[in-house]
């Protein structure tokens, strides 16, 4: 069972089944040694997962359990109070039980985040697919410089582009009212996801055998027909994977949204940042509950791609 699942979850299958024989025997040799390695692996697992574990369990802990030393490593009593604080806070009220100020606007922030993410994924997917098809399937003047440019733009640290975008939004494009509006964030995010999407989709499209398309053309399909009937289904996994990556990076981004929107409108990440700014002590329970809720979509989608596509280096684009 676990053997059968293994190639699915690892990014790339370890080795063909036939090669596994001597290798397995080699590593399985000596039960004591094996359990030492396993113990080491398990302790690394515990250390790595602990911050995530701490976030989730603290989200369910009542304030009295969070605000104590020594801490409860295994939660004693559970509560949903932190989640209701994070989600339902009404403007101007404070949480009665702990006296901690809460911040309104979770749902409107969630709505804004959804609008942003949906627009970014939708728009950039379409135009990136066009460009990727062009550079993968045709030879034309300016093709190579275009590809090189896509690679380079991906490598410029995002933070280096913050100031240029902020400055041009406030001067050259002042008339478009991008600062303080969701449209500004959407436009900025599209630019970040485009190079990565074009580059990845190009790889997917190039791997489609030319014969398949030619066969379709011989059967009387037009260029467009062949494109829709043959190319599109074959690149569908690529489209899904790149959309998910674009989704995750847009969902996780904070500093561009914070700089462009300037507090007029909030995204979920801005909401999360705002939670820490109370003047009556930091409401860790609420923050951890909100963190858990907000990271859930990112984690779920990440797991989906991780299992479905051998993504290796391309996934690097997701790193904050």
């Amino acid at each position, binding site marked *: 069972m676990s053997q059968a699942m293994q190639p699915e979850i690892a990014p790339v299958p370890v080795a063909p089944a036939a090669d596994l024989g001597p290798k397995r025997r080699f590593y399985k040799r000596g039960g004591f040694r094996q359990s030492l390695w396993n113990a080491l692996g398990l302790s690394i697992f515990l250390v790595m997962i602990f911050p995530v574990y701490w976030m989730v369990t603290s989200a369910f802990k009542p304030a009295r359990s969070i605000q104590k030393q020594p801490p409860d490593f295994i939660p004693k009593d559970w509560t949903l109070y932190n989640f209701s604080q994070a989600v339902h806070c009404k403007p101007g009220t404070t949480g009665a039980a702990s006296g901690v100020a809460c911040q309104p606007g979770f749902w409107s922030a969630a709505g804004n985040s959804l609008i942003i993410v949906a627009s970014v994924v939708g728009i950039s997917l379409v135009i990136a697919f066009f460009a990727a098809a062009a550079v993968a399937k045709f030879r034309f003047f300016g093709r190579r410089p275009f590809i090189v440019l896509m690679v380079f733009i991906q490598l410029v640290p995002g933070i280096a582009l913050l100031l240029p975008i902020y400055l041009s939004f406030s001067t050259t494009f002042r008339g478009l009212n991008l600062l303080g509006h969701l449209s500004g964030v959407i436009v900025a995010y599209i630019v970040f996801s485009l190079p990565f999407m074009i580059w990845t989709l190009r790889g997917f499209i190039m791997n489609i055998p030319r014969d398949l398309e030619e066969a379709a053309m011989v059967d009387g399909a037009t260029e467009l027909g062949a494109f829709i009937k043959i190319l599109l289904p074959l690149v569908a996994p690529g489209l899904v994977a790149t959309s998910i990556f674009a989704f995750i990076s847009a969902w996780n981004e904070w500093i561009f949204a914070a700089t462009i929107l300037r507090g007029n409108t909030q995204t979920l990440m801005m909401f999360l940042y705002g939670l820490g700014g109370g003047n009556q002590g930091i409401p860790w329970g609420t923050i951890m509950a909100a963190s858990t809720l907000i990271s859930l979509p990112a984690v779920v989608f990440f797991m989906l791609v991780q299992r479905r596509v051998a993504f290796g280096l391309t996934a690097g684009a997701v790193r*904050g």
Partner: protein
Amino acid sequence: MAAGPSPNGKVKRPRRVKERNTGGWLPYGLVLPSALVMFLVLGVPIYTMVRFSLSRYDLQDILKHVPHYWGLTNFSTLFHDSLFWSATWKTYVFMAACVLLTVVPGLFVALLFTKLSTWVRLLLTTGLVFVWAMPVLVYVNIFKFLTDREFGVLNYVFFKLGLQSELLHKWTDSTWQGYLLVVLMIAWVGLPFIAITTYAALSQVPQELVEAARVDGATGFRTFFAITLPVLKPTLMILVTLSIIWDFGVFVQLYALFESGAIPEAYWILPIYVYQNAVALGHYGLGAAASLMFVVFTAPFGIVYARQLLRQQSDFA
């Protein structure tokens, strides 16, 4: 490379002396929307920034639409600012620490993967993917909570272990501990990518050779340096270069660590310097110049990486 978009066995197209155009106007039409967006939201902003870096433009000039050119004055101000130079060397040292503490443990975990039973490996992989998926602001919050002055669980653990003398302890009060905290969180979140990618590349190591070396009496270390490492080298090179580029651009992890952007000058690495000068203080011209210098500092690493990447492309020979 193990997991690149094009498999290693791909047939190379015969090289043409000159690319013949195919598809007429169609490819231009297909590329146009992307090119237009990139031009407007990347090209124009970068041009704007270069213009600003050569202009006098502060908060009080914000209503003027035409910047007032004053040549390289911003750059000379910048180069005379000791804070800029300290931010620069701090950026390099900080980046080196992050890369080292991400890549070495990552490589170690990748090698460990090959020794583990399947169920432990699955568990560890799943755990690593969880960590990998954490949004940056979320893990900064988690680490802030772990090291909270009063209720931080790390403080408790370190106190019990005798590593710190008092239970109440604020990490960011001491500069090196503050940096250590940021390096720790970057190493933590960066390790999964390195470990999983390297593990994928490890499957390319020919097991016959490893077996043969073992039969010939080679030690584990010897086998690692003579057989495994050379096979891993291309992947490791790419991973190191990528980590350098990423860790050079670390911003949010430091910025969000402090209350509402009040970052002590000891923690000013270049991106913070740029942001504080330009966005927070309104010295747009100076900030633009600093931002350009930052891009110049990053460029060599980017060029190295782009060359590695493009060299692998079959239609790029």
